[in-house]
């Protein structure tokens, strides 16, 4: 069914583009995403978004009169597969690749795209992705550092916590976030009383929490995932550890409240708003046509950030009037105040996204969320 739609869109595009379009080779856009595996839902979201935008563009006559052809490669969220995908998409002559969802998979593919001079735009937020300063890299999600900066400001300046403990698991995402938060907390004048790592899925966090309890923290910040976060919150209560639980964005999942049980209420989670809560008209329009096309909401805001990556690349092709990689990259790096679906942003010289709308939610007794800070965007 999706194929029929795309076929129809292609036909339309050909008609609109006329002879010129038929003569010119299509512009290939690659998608590297976890179509199967643990992150399948997110990966399919990215694939859907890219195909949707490409079809819309093709219906309008394509880019520079050339059709957009989308090539998808499933990296399963695994580094090994990601390297295979990268090589495959490079040999398919993609001018830009959207994805992947996980930092690890993006990281494994990054040098391959850099060597082949192919633009890569992914929601990966690990700082390692920026370490080499590849000019082909364009992170489309707000980096850990932005979340960390917001977190530190909220904990220290807004809430005035005096003693803060930082916990993380060993995942590449969570450790990066925790380290950035710790740094920013210290920079903001906060007192980090302990930093420690838990093993995700090990369930028994009472030993480390008991140790933290002796340190009397006002708040415990956890950068890992909701399944562990919920348990940490529950076990804090069981041990009589009366500190505020503050979770990073990976704690925002309905299961968090279920796992934490009655202890969930009052926990703070820091994240960007969900796709349907984004206040920008372009975002509302995109979410509506996504829902119309696929019958469901985009799985997360990262679907939209990757869509933003593609929108920026398309804008670059139109503005530079060609697909020369060096010119496209130069254009993207100098792009100021790009009007994204997820807010206004630009890229610095390392390809890091500057500009992102983080908020602090409070988990309610019924498992719902209430935005505490800042006042809901747009209101």
């Amino acid at each position, binding site marked *: 069914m999706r194929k029929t739609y795309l076929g129809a869109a292609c036909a339309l595009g050909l008609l609109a583009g006329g002879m010129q379009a038929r003569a010119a080779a299509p512009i290939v856009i690659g998608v590297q995403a976890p179509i*199967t*595996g643990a992150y399948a839902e997110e990966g399919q979201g990215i694939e859907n978004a890219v195909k949707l935008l490409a079809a819309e563009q093709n219906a309008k006559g394509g880019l520079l009169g050339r059709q957009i052809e989308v090539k998808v490669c*499933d990296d399963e969220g695994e*580094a*090994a597969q*990601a*390297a*295979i995908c990268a*090589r*495959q998409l490079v*040999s398919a002559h993609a001018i830009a690749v959207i994805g992947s969802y996980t*930092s*690890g998979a993006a*990281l*494994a593919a*990054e*040098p*391959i795209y850099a*060597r082949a001079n192919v633009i890569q735009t992914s929601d990966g937020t*690990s700082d*390692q992705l920026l*370490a*080499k300063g590849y000019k082909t890299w364009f992170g489309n999600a707000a980096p850990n550092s932005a979340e960390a900066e917001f977190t530190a400001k909220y904990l220290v300046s807004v809430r005035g916590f005096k003693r803060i403990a930082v916990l993380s698991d*060993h*995942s*590449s995402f969570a*450790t*990066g976030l925790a380290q950035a938060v710790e740094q920013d907390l210290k920079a903001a004048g906060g007192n980090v009383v302990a930093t420690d*790592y838990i093993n995700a899925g090990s369930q028994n966090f009472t030993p480390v929490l008991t140790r933290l309890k002796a340190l009397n923290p006002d708040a415990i910040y956890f950068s890992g995932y909701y399944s562990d976060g919920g348990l940490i919150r529950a076990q804090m209560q069981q041990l009589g550890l009366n500190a505020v639980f503050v979770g990073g964005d990976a704690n925002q999942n309905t299961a968090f409240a279920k796992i934490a049980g009655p202890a969930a209420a009052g926990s703070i989670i820091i994240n960007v708003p969900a796709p349907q809560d984004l206040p920008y008209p372009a975002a509302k329009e995109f979410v509506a046509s996504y829902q119309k096309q696929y019958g469901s909401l985009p799985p997360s805001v990262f679907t939209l950030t990757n869509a933003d990556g593609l929108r920026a690349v398309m804008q670059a092709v139109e503005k530079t009037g060609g697909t020369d990689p060096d010119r496209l990259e130069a254009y993207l790096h100098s792009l100021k105040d790009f009007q994204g679906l997820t807010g206004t942003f630009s890229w610095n010289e390392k390809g890091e996204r500057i500009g992102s709308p983080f908020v602090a939610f409070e988990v309610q007794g019924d498992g719902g969320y209430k935005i505490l800070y800042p006042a809901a965007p747009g209101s």
Partner: protein
Amino acid sequence: MSATRMGLAGGLAWLLCLAIPALAGSAWVAIFATFAIYAITALSEDIILGRAGIYDMGHAVYLGIGAYATAILNTAFGWPILATIPAAILAAALAGGLLSAPLIRLRGDYLLVATIGFNAIFILVMQNDPGGITGGSDGIAGIDVPALFGWQLASQNALFWLDWGVLGLALLLMRNLDRCEFGRALRYIKQDQLAAATLGVDTRRVKTLAFALGAGLAGLAGSLFAVQLSSVSPSSFVFTESVTLFAIVIVGGPGSIPGVLLGAALMFVVPEIFRDFAQYRYFVFGIAMIAVMVLRPQGLWPRRRAA
């Protein structure tokens, strides 16, 4: 089939496989390149488990040490990839020898647990990023491609031939192992350690050497692995990988070169064919492992008894 004819057939099959890049799509080239790397690793596990009969359920460690050695020497110290390979082999072999030396006298199952322990410790050490050299859970990215006489082996086809070339060497090495005193000593030890000792086999030394040799070969595979992925991270060397390597040897046929290759193909290539059934994959794998063991306890392609 005689041993020579068997070897000839194997050599021909290997030559035919070299033509894969000319016949198959780029996805398959990458899959078969990865297969070659895992096949070398499985053969190296076979030296320890299949031939010497030492229960090593932490073999992914040595693959990891090789991969990390190449990654660190290349990215942090700027060594060319080919120069890192001997270092990777040496590092893995040393680790294998040193770790196993104090434990080699343990009875089978206890040694198995100790090797599981090595695996867990290795992963934690890599994750905790000692001295800032292993990159924590992100691992290390941005590994170069190997250069041969100024020619960059950047394409997947070039890497494929590199991997298969090394696999060819590993196969020759395994064949020689079958025909030499050291290789036979491993089999004596596997079958009856006490009898072997009374015939003059220094069991402790031979077993430690077997460990070092198997680890070194795995280290070589690790180098190739780092190049193929252009990055390394702890998740590629976790305990489940060790379990898979263990199962490959036993399911394929311990001590049997074609058996181990068949096992590696079943574990790494067949799943690629059934990608659409991804979520049933391991369920079926489980059933298949039981079925193979119950129906063919010696493995799918057992070692010929009279070698």
